[in-house]
Protein backbone atom coordinates (compact mmCIF):
# COMPACT_ATOMS: atom_id res chain seq x y z
CA UNK A 1 0.00 0.00 0.00
CA UNK A 2 1.01 3.59 -0.44
CA UNK A 3 0.77 6.16 2.30
CA UNK A 4 -0.14 9.72 1.46
CA UNK A 5 -1.31 10.70 4.94
CA UNK A 6 -4.70 11.74 3.68
CA UNK A 7 -6.25 10.15 6.74
CA UNK A 8 -4.98 9.64 10.27
CA UNK A 9 -5.11 5.91 9.65
CA UNK A 10 -2.04 6.30 7.50
CA UNK A 11 -0.13 7.59 10.48
CA UNK A 12 -1.13 4.51 12.41
CA UNK A 13 0.19 2.33 9.63
CA UNK A 14 3.39 4.31 9.36
CA UNK A 15 3.91 3.99 13.09
CA UNK A 16 2.87 0.36 13.32
CA UNK A 17 6.06 -1.02 14.94
CA UNK A 18 6.01 1.79 17.45
CA UNK A 19 2.34 1.19 18.22
CA UNK A 20 2.84 -2.54 18.64
CA UNK A 21 5.78 -2.03 20.92
CA UNK A 22 4.07 0.68 22.92
CA UNK A 23 0.88 -1.32 23.48
CA UNK A 24 2.97 -4.37 24.25
CA UNK A 25 5.04 -2.41 26.74
CA UNK A 26 1.83 -1.35 28.46
CA UNK A 27 0.80 -5.00 28.48
CA UNK A 28 4.04 -5.93 30.23
CA UNK A 29 3.40 -3.23 32.78
CA UNK A 30 -0.14 -4.50 33.39
CA UNK A 31 0.98 -8.10 33.58
CA UNK A 32 3.35 -7.04 36.31
CA UNK A 33 0.55 -5.52 38.31
CA UNK A 34 -1.43 -8.72 38.51
CA UNK A 35 1.44 -10.87 39.71
CA UNK A 36 3.98 -9.74 42.22
CA UNK A 37 5.62 -12.99 43.22
CA UNK A 38 9.21 -13.47 42.26
CA UNK A 39 8.62 -16.45 40.02
CA UNK A 40 6.89 -14.24 37.48
CA UNK A 41 9.91 -12.11 36.82
CA UNK A 42 11.57 -14.03 34.01
CA UNK A 43 8.19 -14.55 32.35
CA UNK A 44 7.75 -10.79 32.10
CA UNK A 45 11.06 -10.64 30.31
CA UNK A 46 9.99 -13.32 27.88
CA UNK A 47 6.76 -11.42 27.35
CA UNK A 48 8.74 -8.31 26.52
CA UNK A 49 10.79 -10.35 24.07
CA UNK A 50 7.60 -11.58 22.45
CA UNK A 51 6.42 -7.99 22.11
CA UNK A 52 9.71 -7.06 20.48
CA UNK A 53 9.27 -9.96 18.10
CA UNK A 54 5.84 -8.64 17.16
CA UNK A 55 7.35 -5.21 16.58
CA UNK A 56 9.99 -6.84 14.42
CA UNK A 57 7.27 -8.47 12.32
CA UNK A 58 5.56 -5.11 11.94
CA UNK A 59 8.85 -3.57 10.96
CA UNK A 60 9.37 -6.25 8.34
CA UNK A 61 5.88 -5.70 7.00
CA UNK A 62 6.58 -2.00 6.56
CA UNK A 63 9.00 -2.90 3.77
CA UNK A 64 5.90 -3.61 1.67
CA UNK A 65 4.51 -0.16 2.37
CA UNK A 66 5.58 2.80 0.36
CA UNK A 67 5.00 6.48 0.84
CA UNK A 68 4.12 9.11 -1.69
CA UNK A 69 6.79 11.72 -1.64
CA UNK A 70 9.40 12.08 1.00
CA UNK A 71 8.25 15.05 2.98
CA UNK A 72 5.85 13.62 5.54
CA UNK A 73 6.55 14.01 9.21
CA UNK A 74 6.92 10.25 9.60
CA UNK A 75 9.32 8.63 7.18
CA UNK A 76 8.64 5.17 5.88
CA UNK A 77 11.97 4.63 4.23
CA UNK A 78 14.54 1.89 4.43
CA UNK A 79 16.89 4.04 6.45
CA UNK A 80 14.40 4.05 9.26
CA UNK A 81 13.60 0.37 8.94
CA UNK A 82 17.27 -0.60 9.07
CA UNK A 83 17.74 1.54 12.15
CA UNK A 84 14.70 -0.16 13.68
CA UNK A 85 16.41 -3.51 13.23
CA UNK A 86 19.36 -2.21 15.19
CA UNK A 87 17.12 -0.97 18.00
CA UNK A 88 15.04 -4.13 18.14
CA UNK A 89 18.10 -6.36 18.18
CA UNK A 90 19.77 -4.17 20.78
CA UNK A 91 16.70 -4.14 23.01
CA UNK A 92 16.09 -7.86 22.66
CA UNK A 93 19.68 -8.72 23.53
CA UNK A 94 19.55 -6.33 26.47
CA UNK A 95 16.40 -7.97 27.80
CA UNK A 96 17.95 -11.39 27.37
CA UNK A 97 21.00 -10.48 29.44
CA UNK A 98 18.74 -8.79 32.00
CA UNK A 99 16.58 -11.82 32.79
CA UNK A 100 18.78 -13.32 35.46
CA UNK A 101 20.10 -9.96 36.59
CA UNK A 102 16.64 -8.57 37.29
CA UNK A 103 15.68 -11.63 39.33
CA UNK A 104 18.92 -11.70 41.21
CA UNK A 105 18.84 -8.00 42.05
CA UNK A 106 15.10 -8.14 42.80
CA UNK A 107 14.32 -5.23 40.52
CA UNK A 108 10.75 -4.35 39.60
CA UNK A 109 10.59 -6.51 36.53
CA UNK A 110 7.48 -5.13 34.89
CA UNK A 111 8.63 -1.52 35.05
CA UNK A 112 12.11 -2.48 33.95
CA UNK A 113 11.06 -4.30 30.80
CA UNK A 114 8.35 -1.79 30.03
CA UNK A 115 10.86 1.05 30.26
CA UNK A 116 13.12 -0.73 27.82
CA UNK A 117 10.19 -1.16 25.47
CA UNK A 118 9.23 2.50 25.78
CA UNK A 119 12.78 3.67 25.25
CA UNK A 120 12.86 1.53 22.12
CA UNK A 121 9.64 3.14 20.94
CA UNK A 122 11.33 6.50 21.37
CA UNK A 123 14.29 5.35 19.29
CA UNK A 124 12.04 4.18 16.51
CA UNK A 125 10.25 7.51 16.54
CA UNK A 126 13.58 9.29 16.33
CA UNK A 127 14.61 7.20 13.37
CA UNK A 128 11.30 7.86 11.64
CA UNK A 129 11.12 11.58 12.16
CA UNK A 130 11.45 14.05 9.35
CA UNK A 131 10.54 16.89 11.63
CA UNK A 132 12.60 18.41 14.40
CA UNK A 133 9.55 18.35 16.63
CA UNK A 134 9.29 14.60 16.34
CA UNK A 135 13.04 14.27 16.77
CA UNK A 136 12.75 16.15 20.03
CA UNK A 137 9.81 14.08 21.23
CA UNK A 138 11.52 10.83 20.36
CA UNK A 139 14.82 11.81 21.91
CA UNK A 140 13.11 12.81 25.13
CA UNK A 141 11.10 9.59 25.19
CA UNK A 142 14.35 7.70 25.01
CA UNK A 143 16.14 9.91 27.49
CA UNK A 144 13.46 9.96 30.17
CA UNK A 145 13.08 6.18 30.05
CA UNK A 146 16.82 5.71 30.23
CA UNK A 147 17.24 8.20 33.11
CA UNK A 148 14.88 5.98 35.04
CA UNK A 149 16.66 2.81 33.94
CA UNK A 150 20.06 4.16 34.94
CA UNK A 151 18.76 4.89 38.43
CA UNK A 152 16.72 1.71 38.48
CA UNK A 153 18.43 -0.17 41.27
CA UNK A 154 17.10 1.76 44.24
CA UNK A 155 19.20 -0.24 46.69
CA UNK A 156 22.42 0.80 45.02
CA UNK A 157 23.57 4.35 45.77
CA UNK A 158 25.84 4.28 42.75
CA UNK A 159 22.91 3.59 40.49
CA UNK A 160 21.00 6.52 41.93
CA UNK A 161 23.97 8.79 41.56
CA UNK A 162 24.50 7.70 37.97
CA UNK A 163 20.85 8.37 37.24
CA UNK A 164 20.95 11.82 38.77
CA UNK A 165 24.07 12.86 36.91
CA UNK A 166 22.75 11.54 33.65
CA UNK A 167 19.41 13.20 34.23
CA UNK A 168 20.68 16.65 35.16
CA UNK A 169 23.22 16.81 32.37
CA UNK A 170 20.91 15.20 29.85
CA UNK A 171 18.16 17.68 30.53
CA UNK A 172 20.72 20.48 30.43
CA UNK A 173 21.92 19.33 27.02
CA UNK A 174 18.35 18.96 25.81
CA UNK A 175 17.95 22.62 26.56
CA UNK A 176 20.70 23.50 24.10
CA UNK A 177 19.29 21.11 21.53
CA UNK A 178 15.89 22.71 21.91
CA UNK A 179 17.21 26.23 21.68
CA UNK A 180 18.99 25.25 18.52
CA UNK A 181 15.77 23.86 17.10
CA UNK A 182 13.97 27.09 17.99
CA UNK A 183 16.56 29.18 16.17
CA UNK A 184 16.50 26.93 13.11
CA UNK A 185 12.75 27.13 13.14
CA UNK A 186 12.98 30.88 13.25
CA UNK A 187 15.44 30.94 10.38
CA UNK A 188 13.73 28.42 8.12
CA UNK A 189 10.15 29.03 9.12
CA UNK A 190 9.50 25.37 9.68
CA UNK A 191 10.67 22.40 11.68
CA UNK A 192 10.25 20.05 8.74
CA UNK A 193 13.63 18.85 7.53
CA UNK A 194 12.81 19.20 3.86
CA UNK A 195 11.37 22.65 4.36
CA UNK A 196 14.55 23.58 6.18
CA UNK A 197 16.66 22.15 3.38
CA UNK A 198 14.68 24.09 0.79
CA UNK A 199 14.89 27.27 2.82
CA UNK A 200 18.63 26.89 3.13
CA UNK A 201 18.87 26.19 -0.58
CA UNK A 202 16.85 29.23 -1.55
CA UNK A 203 18.83 31.47 0.72
CA UNK A 204 15.70 32.24 2.70
CA UNK A 205 17.34 30.92 5.85
CA UNK A 206 20.48 32.95 5.46
CA UNK A 207 19.60 35.08 8.44
CA UNK A 208 21.69 35.21 11.56
CA UNK A 209 19.63 32.51 13.25
CA UNK A 210 20.48 29.50 11.10
CA UNK A 211 24.14 29.13 11.96
CA UNK A 212 23.91 29.52 15.75
CA UNK A 213 20.85 27.27 15.64
CA UNK A 214 22.85 24.65 13.77
CA UNK A 215 25.73 25.01 16.23
CA UNK A 216 23.47 24.52 19.25
CA UNK A 217 21.75 21.56 17.63
CA UNK A 218 25.11 19.98 16.89
CA UNK A 219 26.25 20.41 20.48
CA UNK A 220 23.02 18.92 21.76
CA UNK A 221 23.52 15.84 19.64
CA UNK A 222 27.21 15.76 20.47
CA UNK A 223 26.12 15.32 24.06
CA UNK A 224 23.73 12.52 23.15
CA UNK A 225 26.42 10.62 21.26
CA UNK A 226 28.90 11.47 24.05
CA UNK A 227 31.38 13.22 21.84
CA UNK A 228 34.33 15.01 23.39
CA UNK A 229 34.11 17.52 25.10
CA UNK A 230 30.47 16.73 25.86
CA UNK A 231 31.23 13.24 27.07
CA UNK A 232 31.94 13.73 30.73
CA UNK A 233 28.69 12.25 31.94
CA UNK A 234 29.29 9.00 30.05
CA UNK A 235 31.79 7.13 32.25
CA UNK A 236 29.93 8.02 35.43
CA UNK A 237 26.53 7.07 34.07
CA UNK A 238 27.85 3.89 32.48
CA UNK A 239 29.70 2.80 35.57
CA UNK A 240 26.89 3.39 38.02
CA UNK A 241 23.98 2.09 35.99
CA UNK A 242 23.03 -1.60 36.27
CA UNK A 243 25.26 -3.49 33.82
CA UNK A 244 22.51 -4.56 31.39
CA UNK A 245 21.31 -0.97 31.26
CA UNK A 246 24.87 0.13 30.53
CA UNK A 247 24.89 -2.30 27.65
CA UNK A 248 21.66 -0.77 26.37
CA UNK A 249 22.95 2.79 26.75
CA UNK A 250 26.21 2.01 25.03
CA UNK A 251 24.51 0.29 22.12
CA UNK A 252 20.95 1.12 21.16
CA UNK A 253 20.67 4.54 22.81
CA UNK A 254 23.83 5.68 21.11
CA UNK A 255 22.63 4.24 17.81
CA UNK A 256 19.37 6.19 18.04
CA UNK A 257 21.18 9.45 18.58
CA UNK A 258 23.45 8.77 15.60
CA UNK A 259 20.57 7.86 13.31
CA UNK A 260 18.73 11.08 14.12
CA UNK A 261 21.93 13.09 13.85
CA UNK A 262 22.65 11.58 10.45
CA UNK A 263 19.22 12.33 9.06
CA UNK A 264 19.28 15.90 10.29
CA UNK A 265 22.76 16.59 8.98
CA UNK A 266 22.37 14.81 5.66
CA UNK A 267 18.90 16.08 4.89
CA UNK A 268 17.99 19.25 6.75
CA UNK A 269 21.40 20.82 7.17
CA UNK A 270 23.04 19.59 3.99
CA UNK A 271 23.07 23.13 2.69
CA UNK A 272 25.23 24.39 5.53
CA UNK A 273 27.70 21.53 5.24
CA UNK A 274 30.55 23.98 5.01
CA UNK A 275 29.60 25.38 8.39
CA UNK A 276 29.17 22.15 10.33
CA UNK A 277 31.98 20.31 8.62
CA UNK A 278 34.83 21.94 10.60
CA UNK A 279 32.96 21.67 13.91
CA UNK A 280 32.29 17.99 13.53
CA UNK A 281 35.75 17.41 12.11
CA UNK A 282 37.36 18.67 15.28
CA UNK A 283 34.82 16.97 17.53
CA UNK A 284 35.40 13.67 15.74
CA UNK A 285 39.17 13.95 16.03
CA UNK A 286 39.03 14.97 19.69
CA UNK A 287 36.58 12.18 20.48
CA UNK A 288 38.76 9.51 18.91
CA UNK A 289 41.91 10.76 20.60
CA UNK A 290 40.54 11.35 24.09
CA UNK A 291 38.26 8.32 24.13
CA UNK A 292 41.02 5.93 23.15
CA UNK A 293 43.75 7.45 25.24
CA UNK A 294 41.72 7.64 28.41
CA UNK A 295 40.45 4.09 28.00
CA UNK A 296 44.06 2.94 28.29
CA UNK A 297 44.34 3.89 31.95
CA UNK A 298 41.00 2.59 33.17
CA UNK A 299 40.92 -0.17 35.75
CA UNK A 300 37.19 -0.93 35.72
CA UNK A 301 35.90 -2.82 32.73
CA UNK A 302 32.66 -0.87 32.70
CA UNK A 303 34.52 2.42 32.59
CA UNK A 304 36.87 1.04 29.98
CA UNK A 305 33.93 0.04 27.82
CA UNK A 306 32.41 3.46 28.46
CA UNK A 307 35.48 5.19 27.06
CA UNK A 308 35.58 2.62 24.31
CA UNK A 309 32.02 3.57 23.40
CA UNK A 310 33.10 7.21 23.32
CA UNK A 311 35.92 6.25 20.98
CA UNK A 312 33.54 4.36 18.71
CA UNK A 313 31.35 7.44 18.70
CA UNK A 314 34.36 9.23 17.27
CA UNK A 315 34.71 6.70 14.45
CA UNK A 316 31.02 7.08 13.69
CA UNK A 317 31.38 10.86 13.64
CA UNK A 318 33.97 10.39 10.90
CA UNK A 319 31.21 8.80 8.84
CA UNK A 320 29.01 11.82 9.48
CA UNK A 321 31.78 14.20 8.48
CA UNK A 322 32.41 12.23 5.30
CA UNK A 323 28.73 12.66 4.39
CA UNK A 324 28.65 10.47 1.31
CA UNK A 325 26.68 7.36 0.47
CA UNK A 326 29.47 4.97 1.42
CA UNK A 327 29.86 6.65 4.78
CA UNK A 328 26.10 6.73 5.42
CA UNK A 329 25.77 3.03 4.67
CA UNK A 330 28.93 2.45 6.67
CA UNK A 331 27.33 4.27 9.58
CA UNK A 332 24.30 1.98 9.58
CA UNK A 333 26.39 -1.16 9.20
CA UNK A 334 28.75 0.02 11.89
CA UNK A 335 25.88 0.72 14.28
CA UNK A 336 24.51 -2.76 13.77
CA UNK A 337 27.83 -4.50 14.31
CA UNK A 338 28.80 -2.26 17.19
CA UNK A 339 25.48 -2.80 18.95
CA UNK A 340 25.76 -6.55 18.74
CA UNK A 341 29.42 -6.61 19.77
CA UNK A 342 28.92 -4.28 22.70
CA UNK A 343 25.95 -6.15 24.11
CA UNK A 344 27.91 -9.38 23.70
CA UNK A 345 30.83 -7.95 25.66
CA UNK A 346 28.50 -6.72 28.38
CA UNK A 347 26.85 -10.13 28.52
CA UNK A 348 30.23 -11.49 29.58
CA UNK A 349 30.66 -8.65 32.07
CA UNK A 350 27.27 -9.50 33.60
CA UNK A 351 28.24 -13.16 33.85
CA UNK A 352 31.64 -12.46 35.35
CA UNK A 353 29.92 -10.21 37.87
CA UNK A 354 27.51 -13.03 38.66
CA UNK A 355 24.43 -10.94 37.89
CA UNK A 356 25.53 -8.14 40.14
CA UNK A 357 27.96 -5.25 40.10
CA UNK A 358 30.82 -7.30 41.51
CA UNK A 359 34.16 -8.00 39.86
CA UNK A 360 34.17 -5.11 37.44
CA UNK A 361 37.88 -4.51 37.98
CA UNK A 362 39.88 -5.73 34.99
CA UNK A 363 42.26 -7.58 37.32
CA UNK A 364 39.38 -9.81 38.29
CA UNK A 365 39.47 -11.27 34.79
CA UNK A 366 42.81 -12.92 35.49
CA UNK A 367 42.72 -16.52 34.35
CA UNK A 368 39.03 -16.34 33.59
CA UNK A 369 39.48 -17.69 30.08
CA UNK A 370 40.87 -20.95 31.35
CA UNK A 371 38.12 -21.38 33.89
CA UNK A 372 35.31 -20.62 31.44
CA UNK A 373 36.77 -21.31 27.99
CA UNK A 374 33.60 -20.65 26.01
CA UNK A 375 32.91 -17.33 27.68
CA UNK A 376 36.57 -16.40 27.43
CA UNK A 377 36.78 -17.26 23.75
CA UNK A 378 33.67 -15.25 22.91
CA UNK A 379 34.80 -12.28 24.98
CA UNK A 380 38.08 -12.34 23.10
CA UNK A 381 36.13 -12.36 19.86
CA UNK A 382 34.08 -9.34 20.95
CA UNK A 383 37.15 -7.47 22.07
CA UNK A 384 38.87 -8.19 18.77
CA UNK A 385 35.81 -6.99 16.93
CA UNK A 386 35.72 -3.80 18.96
CA UNK A 387 39.39 -3.29 18.13
CA UNK A 388 38.64 -3.91 14.46
CA UNK A 389 40.50 -7.12 13.82
CA UNK A 390 40.09 -8.52 10.29
CA UNK A 391 37.62 -11.35 10.04
CA UNK A 392 35.30 -9.79 12.60
CA UNK A 393 32.40 -7.48 11.95
CA UNK A 394 34.22 -4.64 13.66
CA UNK A 395 36.90 -4.67 10.97
CA UNK A 396 34.39 -4.67 8.15
CA UNK A 397 32.51 -1.78 9.74
CA UNK A 398 35.64 0.25 10.26
CA UNK A 399 36.84 -0.56 6.76
CA UNK A 400 33.56 0.67 5.34
CA UNK A 401 33.72 3.92 7.28
CA UNK A 402 37.34 4.36 6.24
CA UNK A 403 36.32 3.85 2.65
CA UNK A 404 33.75 6.61 3.00
CA UNK A 405 36.38 8.86 4.56
CA UNK A 406 38.85 8.08 1.78
CA UNK A 407 36.24 8.91 -0.84
CA UNK A 408 35.65 12.23 0.89
CA UNK A 409 39.43 12.76 1.07
CA UNK A 410 39.42 13.16 4.82
CA UNK A 411 43.00 11.97 4.99
CA UNK A 412 43.86 13.48 8.33
CA UNK A 413 40.78 12.09 10.02
CA UNK A 414 41.66 8.76 8.45
CA UNK A 415 45.14 8.96 9.91
CA UNK A 416 43.73 9.83 13.33
CA UNK A 417 41.26 6.97 13.08
CA UNK A 418 43.87 4.39 12.23
CA UNK A 419 46.35 5.68 14.80
CA UNK A 420 43.82 5.74 17.60
CA UNK A 421 42.63 2.28 16.62
CA UNK A 422 46.21 1.24 17.18
CA UNK A 423 46.02 2.60 20.70
CA UNK A 424 42.73 0.80 21.24
CA UNK A 425 44.41 -2.54 20.71
CA UNK A 426 46.31 -1.89 23.88
CA UNK A 427 43.33 -1.70 26.21
CA UNK A 428 41.16 -4.29 24.49
CA UNK A 429 44.00 -6.79 24.47
CA UNK A 430 44.75 -5.98 28.05
CA UNK A 431 41.48 -7.64 29.04
CA UNK A 432 42.19 -10.63 26.81
CA UNK A 433 45.68 -10.73 28.24
CA UNK A 434 44.29 -10.88 31.77
CA UNK A 435 41.83 -13.58 30.78
CA UNK A 436 44.30 -15.88 29.09
CA UNK A 437 47.80 -14.95 30.09
CA UNK A 438 47.57 -14.30 33.76
CA UNK A 439 47.18 -16.78 36.51
CA UNK A 440 44.02 -16.51 38.52
CA UNK A 441 44.64 -15.28 42.06
CA UNK A 442 44.32 -17.75 44.89
CA UNK A 443 40.77 -18.70 45.64
CA UNK A 444 39.35 -17.15 42.47
CA UNK A 445 39.19 -20.57 40.89
CA UNK A 446 36.32 -21.57 43.07
CA UNK A 447 34.47 -18.36 42.57
CA UNK A 448 33.24 -18.96 39.04
CA UNK A 449 29.78 -19.46 40.46
CA UNK A 450 26.98 -21.58 39.15
CA UNK A 451 25.92 -22.31 35.62
CA UNK A 452 25.65 -19.45 33.17
CA UNK A 453 21.98 -18.68 32.52
CA UNK A 454 20.61 -20.16 29.35
CA UNK A 455 19.57 -16.78 27.94
CA UNK A 456 23.12 -15.46 28.31
CA UNK A 457 24.45 -18.38 26.35
CA UNK A 458 21.94 -17.67 23.62
CA UNK A 459 22.96 -14.02 23.55
CA UNK A 460 26.65 -14.89 23.44
CA UNK A 461 26.20 -17.34 20.62
CA UNK A 462 23.95 -15.01 18.65
CA UNK A 463 26.35 -12.09 19.11
CA UNK A 464 29.37 -14.23 18.35
CA UNK A 465 27.67 -15.61 15.27
CA UNK A 466 26.74 -12.17 14.01
CA UNK A 467 30.21 -10.78 14.68
CA UNK A 468 31.78 -13.59 12.67
CA UNK A 469 29.14 -13.52 9.96
CA UNK A 470 29.44 -9.79 9.42
CA UNK A 471 33.18 -10.19 9.36
CA UNK A 472 33.42 -13.04 6.91
CA UNK A 473 30.26 -12.85 4.84
CA UNK A 474 28.97 -9.33 5.34
CA UNK A 475 27.44 -9.22 1.86
CA UNK A 476 23.80 -9.37 2.88
CA UNK A 477 24.13 -6.90 5.73
CA UNK A 478 26.11 -4.49 3.61
CA UNK A 479 23.67 -4.73 0.74
CA UNK A 480 20.86 -4.02 3.16
CA UNK A 481 22.70 -1.04 4.64
CA UNK A 482 23.50 0.23 1.19
CA UNK A 483 19.92 -0.09 0.02
CA UNK A 484 18.81 1.66 3.17
CA UNK A 485 20.62 4.90 2.45
CA UNK A 486 19.57 5.14 -1.17
CA UNK A 487 17.85 8.42 -1.70
CA UNK A 488 18.43 9.53 1.86
CA UNK A 489 20.85 12.27 1.02
CA UNK A 490 19.34 13.30 -2.30
CA UNK A 491 15.73 13.20 -1.42
CA UNK A 492 15.17 16.77 -2.59
CA UNK A 493 15.67 15.49 -6.08
CA UNK A 494 18.59 17.12 -7.74
CA UNK A 495 18.92 19.90 -5.23
CA UNK A 496 21.37 18.33 -2.86
CA UNK A 497 24.65 20.10 -3.38
CA UNK A 498 27.70 18.09 -4.18
CA UNK A 499 30.58 18.65 -1.88
Amino acid at each position, binding site marked *: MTLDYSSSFHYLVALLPECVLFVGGMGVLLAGVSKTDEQRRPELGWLALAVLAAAAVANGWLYSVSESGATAMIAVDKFRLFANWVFIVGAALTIAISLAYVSRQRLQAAEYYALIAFATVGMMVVAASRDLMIVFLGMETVSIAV*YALAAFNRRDPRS*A*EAGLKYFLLGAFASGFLLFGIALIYGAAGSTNLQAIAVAVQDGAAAGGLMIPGMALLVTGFAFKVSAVPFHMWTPDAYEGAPTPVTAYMASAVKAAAFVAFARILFVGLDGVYDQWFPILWWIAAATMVVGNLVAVVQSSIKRMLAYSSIAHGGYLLVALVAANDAAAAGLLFYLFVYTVTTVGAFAVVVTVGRQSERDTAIEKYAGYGWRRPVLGTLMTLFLLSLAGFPGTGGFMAKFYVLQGAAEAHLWWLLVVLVLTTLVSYWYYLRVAWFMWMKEAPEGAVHRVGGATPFAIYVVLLVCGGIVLATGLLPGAAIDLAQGSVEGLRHWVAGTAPAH
Partner: protein
Amino acid sequence: MLTYALPLSAALFAIGTLGVVVRRNAIVMFLCIELQLNAVNLAFVALSRQVGIEGQLFVFFVMTVAAAEAAVGLAIIIAVFRHQRTVQVDRFNLLRW
Protein backbone atom coordinates in the same frame (compact mmCIF):
# COMPACT_ATOMS: atom_id res chain seq x y z
CA MET B 1 8.65 42.49 18.83
CA LEU B 2 11.18 39.87 17.81
CA THR B 3 14.05 42.22 18.53
CA TYR B 4 13.01 42.25 22.17
CA ALA B 5 11.73 38.72 22.61
CA LEU B 6 14.76 36.90 21.26
CA PRO B 7 17.35 38.72 23.35
CA LEU B 8 15.12 38.25 26.37
CA SER B 9 14.85 34.56 25.62
CA ALA B 10 18.60 34.32 25.17
CA ALA B 11 19.16 36.15 28.44
CA LEU B 12 16.81 33.83 30.31
CA PHE B 13 18.54 30.86 28.74
CA ALA B 14 21.93 32.19 29.80
CA ILE B 15 20.69 32.72 33.34
CA GLY B 16 19.41 29.16 33.42
CA THR B 17 22.73 27.89 32.12
CA LEU B 18 24.66 29.86 34.71
CA GLY B 19 22.39 28.50 37.39
CA VAL B 20 23.08 24.92 36.41
CA VAL B 21 26.77 25.64 36.47
CA VAL B 22 26.99 27.35 39.85
CA ARG B 23 24.18 25.98 41.99
CA ARG B 24 24.73 22.83 43.98
CA ASN B 25 21.25 21.88 45.03
CA ALA B 26 19.90 19.29 42.61
CA ILE B 27 16.39 20.70 42.79
CA VAL B 28 17.55 24.23 42.12
CA MET B 29 19.65 22.95 39.23
CA PHE B 30 16.59 21.28 37.86
CA LEU B 31 14.62 24.52 38.23
CA CYS B 32 17.33 26.29 36.24
CA ILE B 33 16.93 23.71 33.51
CA GLU B 34 13.21 24.46 33.53
CA LEU B 35 14.14 28.11 33.12
CA GLN B 36 16.11 27.19 30.02
CA LEU B 37 13.18 25.29 28.61
CA ASN B 38 10.88 28.23 29.23
CA ALA B 39 13.33 30.55 27.57
CA VAL B 40 13.08 28.27 24.54
CA ASN B 41 9.30 28.40 24.79
CA LEU B 42 9.43 32.18 24.71
CA ALA B 43 11.59 32.06 21.62
CA PHE B 44 9.20 29.64 19.94
CA VAL B 45 6.15 31.76 20.66
CA ALA B 46 7.84 34.92 19.53
CA LEU B 47 9.12 33.34 16.35
CA SER B 48 5.80 31.73 15.59
CA ARG B 49 4.26 35.18 15.36
CA GLN B 50 6.45 35.72 12.38
CA VAL B 51 6.72 32.40 10.67
CA GLY B 52 3.72 30.26 11.49
CA ILE B 53 1.74 28.22 13.93
CA GLU B 54 4.21 25.34 14.33
CA GLY B 55 6.15 27.17 17.02
CA GLN B 56 3.16 27.39 19.32
CA LEU B 57 2.53 23.71 18.80
CA PHE B 58 6.07 22.99 19.73
CA VAL B 59 5.64 24.88 23.01
CA PHE B 60 2.95 22.46 24.11
CA PHE B 61 5.19 19.53 23.44
CA VAL B 62 8.02 21.15 25.32
CA MET B 63 5.78 21.73 28.32
CA THR B 64 4.54 18.15 28.24
CA VAL B 65 8.01 16.78 28.02
CA ALA B 66 9.17 19.07 30.80
CA ALA B 67 6.41 17.74 33.01
CA ALA B 68 7.40 14.14 32.31
CA GLU B 69 10.99 15.02 32.91
CA ALA B 70 10.09 16.62 36.21
CA ALA B 71 8.31 13.47 37.34
CA VAL B 72 11.23 11.20 36.56
CA GLY B 73 13.81 13.72 37.71
CA LEU B 74 12.24 14.32 41.07
CA ALA B 75 11.87 10.59 41.58
CA ILE B 76 15.58 10.17 40.95
CA ILE B 77 16.38 13.03 43.28
CA ILE B 78 14.29 11.34 45.98
CA ALA B 79 16.12 8.05 45.38
CA VAL B 80 19.42 9.82 45.82
CA PHE B 81 18.17 11.61 48.91
CA ARG B 82 17.32 8.27 50.53
CA HIS B 83 20.91 7.15 50.20
CA GLN B 84 22.74 10.35 50.90
CA ARG B 85 20.33 12.32 53.06
CA THR B 86 21.12 15.33 50.94
CA VAL B 87 20.49 16.69 47.47
CA GLN B 88 23.65 18.79 47.33
CA VAL B 89 25.42 17.50 44.23
CA ASP B 90 28.88 18.28 45.59
CA ARG B 91 28.38 15.44 48.07
CA PHE B 92 28.01 12.83 45.36
CA ASN B 93 31.33 11.32 44.57
CA LEU B 94 30.89 7.58 44.44
CA LEU B 95 31.52 7.76 40.72
CA ARG B 96 34.54 9.80 39.96
CA TRP B 97 36.43 9.94 36.71
